[in-house]
């Protein structure tokens, strides 16, 4: 309906002039993503520059002399205009230098490194849960009439449970009452960390997993109702074969988009879970740094969260173009 009204002669001409092909399309997506990160980072930087609090008194303490203050201000470049400061920050950030933390007196990069590992482990565990359980339940709910109502009720509930509420319930039941898991922290060493992060990963995956399940079930149900599937059934082709070859394959694209969006949001979602379980990841570091007005750390962690989000969504976009023959031909 919209397609007919959208294609005006001018647009068609422009489309003909525009560089076509799959490479160009991917290049446009990537450039767009980079522009998004750049804009978002500037907005974050500008917003934080409006935040109250004087970094100089944070760094030097209340008893510093006026000369020392002036020197420090000049050293930090605080008197430069906003755009100049942003430019300096950006060129440093691109080389992996995020400055020095006001409160820890350490390089921001060394602060973030180990915490980022913890957060990424948590996110990876949640991602596996979301993809395996979420898609599995979604296919079940989409294919089986008997399970469809159960799955849709469970997802309706799952979507409504915020991560911090899920965390409280999980701690209360599995850590305190049953004592199966630790209540706090991220542990040392890989195995211990995984054991510590089971409940946090579960809490993190409930909402996003329910979302993936819901969309998977809807996609599978839609594909299963299509004419070619019904015809194949009528011809007596085994259900499993129809499911694998026709239903799941066609449902894969919307499922991939939904999972991608869920995974992209995980690093931000991890922030709340880290607070709930007392895990020393980058999310907890961000919250602590905001309270302590430690802006170099706040800016750096915010940038990481935005970059992860944009990279994951861009990868999904590109994968979609590569995997979907229709989109490939349209490109």
């Amino acid at each position, binding site marked *: 309906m919209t397609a007919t009204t959208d294609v005006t002669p001018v647009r068609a001409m422009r489309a003909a002039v525009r560089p076509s092909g799959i490479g160009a399309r991917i290049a446009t997506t990537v450039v767009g993503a980079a522009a*998004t990160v750049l804009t978002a980072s500037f907005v974050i930087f500008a917003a934080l520059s409006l935040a109250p609090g004087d970094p100089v008194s944070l760094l030097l303490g209340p008893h510093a002399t006026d000369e020392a203050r002036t020197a420090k201000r000049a050293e930090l470049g605080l008197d430069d205009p906003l755009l100049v400061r942003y430019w300096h920050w950006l060129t440093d950030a691109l080389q992996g230098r995020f400055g020095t933390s006001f409160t820890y007196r350490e390089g921001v990069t060394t602060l973030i490194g180990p915490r980022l590992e913890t957060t990424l482990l948590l996110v990876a565990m949640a991602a596996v849960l979301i993809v395996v359980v979420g898609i599995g339940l979604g296919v079940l709910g989409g294919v089986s009439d008997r399970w469809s109502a159960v799955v849709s009720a469970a997802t309706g509930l799952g979507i409504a449970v915020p991560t911090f509420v899920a965390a409280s319930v999980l701690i209360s039941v599995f850590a305190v009452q049953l004592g199966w898991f630790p209540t706090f922290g991220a542990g040392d060493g890989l195995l211990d960390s995984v054991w510590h992060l089971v409940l946090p990963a579960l809490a993190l995956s409930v909402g996003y997993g329910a979302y993936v399940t819901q969309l998977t079930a809807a996609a599978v149900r839609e594909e299963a109702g299509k004419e070619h599937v019904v015809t194949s059934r009528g011809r007596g082709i085994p259900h499993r074969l129809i499911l694998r070859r026709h239903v799941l394959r066609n449902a894969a694209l919307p499922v991939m988009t939904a999972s991608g969006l869920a995974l992209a949001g995980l690093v931000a979602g991890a922030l*709340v879970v880290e607070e709930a379980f007392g895990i020393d990841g980058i999310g907890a570091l961000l919250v602590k740094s905001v*309270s302590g007005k430690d802006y170099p750390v706040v800016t750096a962690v915010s940038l990481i969260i935005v970059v992860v989000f944009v990279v994951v969504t861009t990868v999904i976009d590109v994968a979609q173009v590569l995997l979907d023959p229709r989109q490939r031909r349209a490109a």
Partner: protein
Amino acid sequence: MAAVTVDVATAAQVRRRADPLLVVSATCCLLLIAVALVGGWLAPYQPDEIDVLAASQGPGPHHWLGTDSLGRDVLSRALAGAALSFAGPLLIVLGSVVLGTVLGVVAAWYGGWLDQMLNRLLNVMFAVPGILVAVIASAVFGAGFWAPVIALTLVYIPYAARIIRSAAVRERQQAYVEGLQLAGVSSLSINTKHVLRNVWPLIVAQATIGLGTALADFAAVSFIGLGVQPPAAEWGVMVAEGRAEILDGAPQQSLVAGLCIVVTVVSFNVLGERLAARFGAAR
């Protein structure tokens, strides 16, 4: 012609058919709003009334849902906390729906470069996760009630704008719009008197779902300590304050507040979906 009359008939039937889920969820939502309005009066105790001798009690005859580690009545805190828990999300939904509607309708009406610019802007806004915006807002404005309200309003605008834009684009293609334009009716009055009036049900359904989501997000910001500050009674604050009590085996404060949040989100989600289905079917 025949097809049209059949369509109208089915739409009317759908309208008349009872929808039990709609009735149940609407009742729950109205009850919850009533609690938000008068919960403070219903509370058997003052929400901040400390009674150290009755600390960390389980449910009992004096305190139906138990007490927290300071001996405050959990039921009273949950009832009184509804007001703050709803006030923030209500402002968020109002602000984002009003601004999103303006942006969506303007983008749909003028199209072209304005539409594309707005689309780019919305894409950038989509790229910054809501909780991060709330964290940055609390750095700028200070932790409190207003930081998450401002932040989440901004975060919800693109969602509202996108949905309303696509509905308004569909509406704009209707023949009557062109008719009105030819009759010399101004753009402003076509949009406010006709387009908006037809898109209105969708906006209501969307705002209903948005209220549940906003309530969960607002509570999450309070939970991480950057929103409403303790000792104020608010559901997110209650879940956070109950964390230490969970470890001592007295999870009532966290669980009751968590349950309030979940029930609210489910009620508003279901109501919004049923409304959308009904309005969709009636169209």
